[in-house]
């Protein structure tokens, strides 16, 4: 069983949803990213989504766009991120899922990426603009499997029955449900029908289902945890990192926020 699957298995036994924070690698720099990941793990993160910055993040709102811009301006590269993971993954003790746009991976070459990622201790990959249909997949899936990397795919409110079946077939570790049609970031209230939709989807999947996009408060996280196997919080934390960068209490503030968000996930 993969480390990511084990996380969900453990959470299931403990009758809670997994807490999955997101942060952009290299914002404000890679050394701080390492310290932030540790703070998140100490605060109660079960799994960390580590974002690979991209020049054209079409699925992201302003907060993560700005983080990507800062990270790229600081010279962050995919190789640098993988080296960082290699140095810290063991000590961290929680699995790392890379969250990327496809071009930096495609540019590196799937085989070479997968080999280096696996050697660095990365646990899985989610490419936001690579749906399971793409024929590049015929290579993508076997290559990722060969290196023991989980392939997480997205579902969205617009996904049809056929698409749900396809994602269910290719996703390993878990399936990531996008809470609403939209981009990352705060857009006010979550859709009323979200919990019902998550319950409905969960019955169709054998994998755990995590929910993300637009989840900001412990209350929102707790309400989704009643139905989902995992809760992802991204922009709210990236925004906190943005605000606190340069302050002495950056790490303690992030740890504290993760703690507050993770606490309410008991069912």
């Amino acid at each position, binding site marked *: 069983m993969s480390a990511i699957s084990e996380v969900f298995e453990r959470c299931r036994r403990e009758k809670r949803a997994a807490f999955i924070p997101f942060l952009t690698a290299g914002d404000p720099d890679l050394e701080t990213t390492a310290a932030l990941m540790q703070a998140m793990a100490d605060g109660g993160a079960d799994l960390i989504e580590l974002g690979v910055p991209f020049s054209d993040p079409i699925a992201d709102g302003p907060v993560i766009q700005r983080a990507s811009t800062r990270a790229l301006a600081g010279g962050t590269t995919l190789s640098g991120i993988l080296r960082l993971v290699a140095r810290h993954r063991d000590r961290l003790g929680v699995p790392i899922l890379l969250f990327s746009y496809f*071009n930096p991976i495609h540019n590196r070459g799937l085989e070479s990426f997968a080999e280096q990622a696996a050697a660095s201790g990365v646990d899985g990959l989610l490419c936001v603009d690579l749906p399971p249909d793409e024929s590049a997949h015929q290579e993508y899936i076997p290559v990722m499997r060969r290196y023991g990397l989980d392939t997480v795919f997205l579902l969205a409110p617009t996904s049809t029955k056929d698409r749900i079946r396809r994602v269910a077939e290719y996703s390993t570790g878990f399936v990531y449900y996008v809470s609403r049609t939209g981009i990352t970031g705060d857009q006010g209230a979550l859709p009323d029908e979200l919990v019902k939709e998550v319950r409905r989807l969960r019955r169709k999947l054998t994998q755990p289902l995590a929910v993300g996009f637009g989840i900001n408060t412990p209350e929102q996280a707790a309400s989704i945890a009643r139905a989902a196997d995992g809760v992802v919080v991204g922009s709210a934390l990236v925004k906190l990192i943005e605000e606190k960068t340069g302050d002495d209490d950056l790490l303690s503030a992030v740890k504290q926020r993760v703690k507050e968000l993770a606490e309410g996930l008991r069912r």
Partner: protein
Amino acid sequence: MARPQLRPDANGYFGPYGGRYVPETLMAPLDELAKAYDRWSRKRSFRNELRDLLTHYAGRPTPLYHAKRLTEHFGGAQIYLKREDLLHTGAHKLNNAIGQALLAKMMGKRRVIAETGAGQHGVASATAAALLGLECVVYMGVEDTVRQRLNVDRMELLGATVAPVDSGSRTLKDAINEALRDWVTNVRDTHYILGSVLGPDPYPRMVRDFHRVIGDEARRQLKKQAGTVSPDVAIACVGGGSNAIGLFTAFIDDRRVKLVGVEAGGSGEALGEHAARFGKGGSLGVLHGTRTLVLQDEEGQIAGTHSVSAGLDYPAIGPEHALLADEGRIEYTRASDTEAIAAFDLLARIEGILPALESAHALAYAGKVAPLLSKRRLILVNLSGRGDKDVESVQNWRAKEREQADAEDSTAVAEVTVHPAARKWGKSQEEAG
């Protein structure tokens, strides 16, 4: 509109290029769009309505003009201009905008969005939206809102909202990013009118089909006016590639016709100084939903581009172009900023036509080949748009040049009125003759 061709394959691939590399939220809507397009484009009622609008509203067929003075100037092949600049709103872009807006209406969408670089596709979309009673938002990079100011005003007068995009390079690429973000968010009631043969399937084939009327008409007109359906060379500028595909599709199977796409050579050879994806600049990548040739750095980050023309200032090429280049069917070359400005000047002065700076790139190449060919040869150039929008850009260019000349030598000022590159053309004419 003629029947769709066999390409791309069922998955939206032109050989290794194309596909649908988009977030999951857009996958089902793209399916729906492809199905709607396939259904409606086959219906007689839809085709008739589109043809009717293109004829009586937009002004098709656009003229084919034998540019005799330009021909004489170069002293070589006969040059014919396909006058897309005379289409309503002033560029070829309206063919596609009306087609897609009509489709959006059939699909029950109440809102359309578009990206724009030069502002021509934005104006065309705003126009089609006004005509068909749709709400319209146009995304445009901040840099482009400045250099194509006239078109911003036009869009607003047409009732559209122009949303300036202040991220990244603040040009066309970033406008597409923002339009995609809007679409992901509002996909249920919104259709995205993408303005070139770019993006995820079905856009590259749909936009091509809406534009192929350009080449189909040109063939018929050539037959009548020049006694042949086959020019020796057909030339078009290539941003995303829509006016080029629109012209070339009618000639693809006619091997007698040499097809040449002209990219933006910008101000230099280094990454960031041009928008030429063929040659050593571009490499295989994935951008804006399609796998194609992309200008990128060694880490797979998309590179900045530069062109004096906003409509060519884009780092990726339509996937069908990438395949046609591999097959050797279309040849790609580039024209620099300086060459494009010189061609703009020349056409203005000896034909009384202000071309769009985009189209001026195609004219610049025509000026290179015409003198090398005999007078019995025939060159067809797609004059994709008119240059009113570029008046300020050209004036700024002049002003900068004058400053430079002043700095170098105050006596050089008088000579600048005849552009150096235009003189160069004069010379190549002598050499040829």
